[in-house]
């Protein structure tokens, strides 16, 4: 990791050796290739030029830029594989270069499970265009029509029929210089490879960084290092919105290695992504910073959230959920149908706050100089971090370089920039590079939490046991409250994550949202509102199946109804053309729901499983981030009466899949993530302060608690690619709880299971 200052403009050039040619490095009008962009994506200003994404060294080494952040989802391998495929590059000769934050890459905010679906075509065109130019360069060299030339595995070959007497092949390295001088070919002259000729897309590949990770050589944010750097720890106000009333740093300053104690600017609502304030200790090493912080004597003014109490707040949410709320979707007349009487089923569900707890706590290294700054941040959003640092320091954005080391997990936490801004403020105060290191306690106590939620359901069952009316209410402090204190209703994004987008074939559906005031910073956590909504909806569906006396699998298929494309208007889903939503390439397809349900059930041996005697099986299906996922979970109760997860079968339809082995890994991990939140996950506040602090009070699954076996079944599909990182999480908890019901007869209406004595 170099300390040499780089400028944004020089970043890509600096990557290459002196003799290298970046294809078509000349200026290109902005938006020249805008038609490549999925019109649904906010990328219109991006330069879709192959040189943005790749270059070729004279020795033939192909460098491919990874502009998305690698937090364990495999994106740093997957998207370059797409480029390499269309380029006909030899993967063994590809080097991946991690981009700095720069708007020329379009959105780099690595969230919403949209990296592949937003950039798949872009990467194909980048690789295919470069291949076309290399082929043209070879044709010119040979003086033959381009039709007689063919790019294949890092070289352009003359077709056999015309090869006699000519050079059999020209390597990409030999052609790079000539290709770089060619004009950008018009799009219609670029022929993308047919699916049948893909050599990397759809084929397993190990992660690019695999060996570096296993030998301790991979560079994470925590590992960033520059000369003369100092280390810092921050004592944050225990209550959100609290401020420093006074402090005594005498003992802290006496710690060997402590250099400086700095009070950070006070926090002001709304929280946004600003730092929390507090007092920082800057030292020669991390330990001295931690020790100094421990010895600070600080008096806090706790501010307006000092009364936040999770037990009281839960009652408030549940009461709100039992009252009529703002209508978010209305088909038919569910209220009238329910009022007419009959077999009515009612249930309330609750799911608590969660913390991300990525293994690498938040950390950032920033070097602020008079006229510029350079940062190394394990961030999901390097452009956002760049802008936030620039704003905090008072520099133009283009004077801030944001490097992106590997992220030691993130799950949504690292799309926030509070910790990066802390490092920038402290670097300015110390006039040295400063790395701010959050402890695990900081991470858990000062997270942007997954929202707590209460839900209320009412359904009326017809003669066949299927619902004729469905009333569902959800109440949760919304993510919007982090950015605007007055926001108390969920956004269409949150409501569309598993609540308004209910796919069931029910004639009368009413979906409502009640208000909730936020008292903690609410953020995005792997699959976001889908977690609590899927828990409520899919558990309640299972309740209805049992009430109807029908097999839950058969009942779930009946709820889904006949194969059809569901009109988004019917769902009142606000499908704006945004990455997290969907639009025409991604219709809501009941056949795809049905297929994953049937596949998961069949592979799990649903029909052969005999529940009872403490053994149970449960199923749930959920579509999120445009991917269809069904989970079947098998459990037994051990000798202590605790739930053991014996087997999980997850079937998914994510459309076109780039790296299947990685997709399987993501869904294996999602089952463990789901098990952690279902069994143990809970953040609570008392007197405004979060009560949990480390892995003893905020446990996550360990090896003996995780599902013993997760089987992932990928539906083969030519549909456009959909999300992979998040969609495995939502159906897990309800499938587990449905299995617990089958095993014990106990319906779990509140998470986590540890409170039911089952974990």
């Amino acid at each position, binding site marked *: 990791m170099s300390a040499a200052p780089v400028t944004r403009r020089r970043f890509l050039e600096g990557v290459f050796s002196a003799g290298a040619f970046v294809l078509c490095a000349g200026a290109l009008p902005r938006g020249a290739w805008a038609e490549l962009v999925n019109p649904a994506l906010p990328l219109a200003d991006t330069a879709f030029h192959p040189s943005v994404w790749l270059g070729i060294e004279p020795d033939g080494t192909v460098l491919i830029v990874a502009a998305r952040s690698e937090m364990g989802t495999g994106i740093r391998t997957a998207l370059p594989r797409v480029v390499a495929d269309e380029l006909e590059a030899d993967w063994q000769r590809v080097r991946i270069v991690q981009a700095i934050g720069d708007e020329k890459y379009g959105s780099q905010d690595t969230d919403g499970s949209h990296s592949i679906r937003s950039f798949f075509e872009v990467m194909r065109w980048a690789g295919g265009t470069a291949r076309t130019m290399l082929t043209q360069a070879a044709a010119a060299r040979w003086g033959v029509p381009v039709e007689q030339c063919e790019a294949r595995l890092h070289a352009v070959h003359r077709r056999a029929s015309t090869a006699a007497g000519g050079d059999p092949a020209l390597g990409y390295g030999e052609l790079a210089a000539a290709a770089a001088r060619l004009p950008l070919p018009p799009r219609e002259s670029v022929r993308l490879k047919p699916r049948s000729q893909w050599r990397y897309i759809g084929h397993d590949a190990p992660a690019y960084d695999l060996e570096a990770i296993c030998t301790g050589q991979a560079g994470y944010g925590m590992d960033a290092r520059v000369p003369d750097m100092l280390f810092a720890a921050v004592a944050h106000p225990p209550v959100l919105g609290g401020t420093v009333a006074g402090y005594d740093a005498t003992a802290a300053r006496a710690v060997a290695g402590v250099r400086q104690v700095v009070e950070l600017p006070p926090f002001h609502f709304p929280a946004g992504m600003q730092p929390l304030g507090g007092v920082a200790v800057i030292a020669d090493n991390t330990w001295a910073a931690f020790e100094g912080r421990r010895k600070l004597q600080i008096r806090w003014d706790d501010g307006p959230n000092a009364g936040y109490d999770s037990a009281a707040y839960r009652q408030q949410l549940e009461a709100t959920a039992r009252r009529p709320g703002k209508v978010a979707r209305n088909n038919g007349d569910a209220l009238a149908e329910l009022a007419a009487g009959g077999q009515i089923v009612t249930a309330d569900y609750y799911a608590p706050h969660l913390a991300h707890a990525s*293994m690498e706590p938040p950390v950032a290294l920033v070097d602020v100089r008079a006229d510029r700054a350079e940062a190394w941040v394990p961030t999901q959003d390097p452009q956002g971090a760049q802008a936030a640092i620039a704003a905090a320091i008072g520099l133009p954005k283009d004077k801030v370089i944001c490097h992106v080391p590997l992220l030691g997990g993130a799950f949504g936490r690292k799309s926030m920039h509070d910790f990066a801004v802390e490092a920038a403020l402290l670097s300015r105060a110390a006039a040295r590079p400063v790395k701010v290191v959050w402890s695990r306690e900081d991470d858990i106590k000062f997270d942007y939490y997954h929202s707590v939620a209460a839900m209320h359901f009412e359904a009326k069952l017809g003669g066949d046991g299927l619902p004729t009316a469905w009333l569902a209410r959800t109440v949760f402090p919304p993510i919007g409250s982090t950015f605007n204190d007055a926001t108390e209703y969920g956004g269409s994004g949150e409501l569309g994550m598993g609540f308004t987008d209910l796919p069931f074939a029910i004639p009368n559906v009413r979906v409502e949202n009640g208000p909730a005031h936020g008292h903690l910073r609410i953020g995005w956590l792997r699959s976001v509102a889908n977690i609590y909504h899927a828990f409520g909806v899919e558990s309640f569906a299972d309740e209805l199946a049992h009430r109807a006396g029908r097999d839950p699998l058969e009942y779930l298929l009946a709820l889904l109804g006949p194969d059809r494309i569901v009109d988004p208007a019917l769902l009142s889903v606000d499908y704006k053309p945004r990455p997290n939503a969907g639009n025409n390439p991604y219709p809501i397809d009941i056949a795809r729901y049905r297929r994953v349900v049937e596949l998961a059930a069949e592979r799990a041996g649903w029909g052969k499983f005999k529940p009872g005697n403490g053994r149970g099986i449960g199923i749930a299906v959920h579509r999120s981030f445009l991917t269809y996922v069904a989970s079947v979970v098998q459990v037994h109760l051990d000798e202590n009466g605790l739930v053991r997860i014996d087997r999980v079968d997850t079937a998914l339809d994510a459309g076109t899949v780039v790296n299947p082995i990685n997709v399987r890994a993501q869904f294996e991990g999602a089952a*463990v993530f789901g098990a952690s939140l279902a069994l143990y996950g809970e953040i609570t506040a008392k007197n405004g302060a979060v009560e949990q602090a480390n*892995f003893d009070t905020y446990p996550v699954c360990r090896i003996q608690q995780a599902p013993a076996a997760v089987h992932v079944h990928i539906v083969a599909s030519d549909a456009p690619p959909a999300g992979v990182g998040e969609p495995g999480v939502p159906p897990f908890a309800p499938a587990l709880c449905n299995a617990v019901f089958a095993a014990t007869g106990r319906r779990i209406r509140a998470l986590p299971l540890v409170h039911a004595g089952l974990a």
Partner: protein
Amino acid sequence: MLRIKVNGRDYSFNGDPNMPLLWYLRDELRLTGTKFGCGAALCGACTVHQDGRPIRSCVASMARVAGSEIVTIEGLANGELHPVQRAWIAENVPQCGYCQAGQIMQAVALLRAHPRPSDAQIEEAMSGNICRCGTYQRIRAAIKAAAQGGAQ
């Protein structure tokens, strides 16, 4: 002055004897393969070997490890990858990878003690190492594969 051997090299240390080995390795020796995860011996990301036995370096003070021989992830490969590292690669274990150095060091120690570990022995030995990405199934498979291959 404290003396310590790390990955075969001798060092002397003049700083705070209460400083955990983790921060000495990371901040002073710049051996950053060993990770900070919890600071309280709860997650195992900082696992290294002290005289061949796995310890949590985040709670092992310099005073406690003085005079001993420490091996970190950087010192595990001896010219070629350790069989456990090879098994980790073959089973494609890591996702974010942050915890994996600790997992590998713990697994190496397990296989030294139990060359053919049972499932229960694997669970007991590995239960202190958290992987938030949820790679446990592959960790288990990699340990078994390494055991089959005779990893020592």
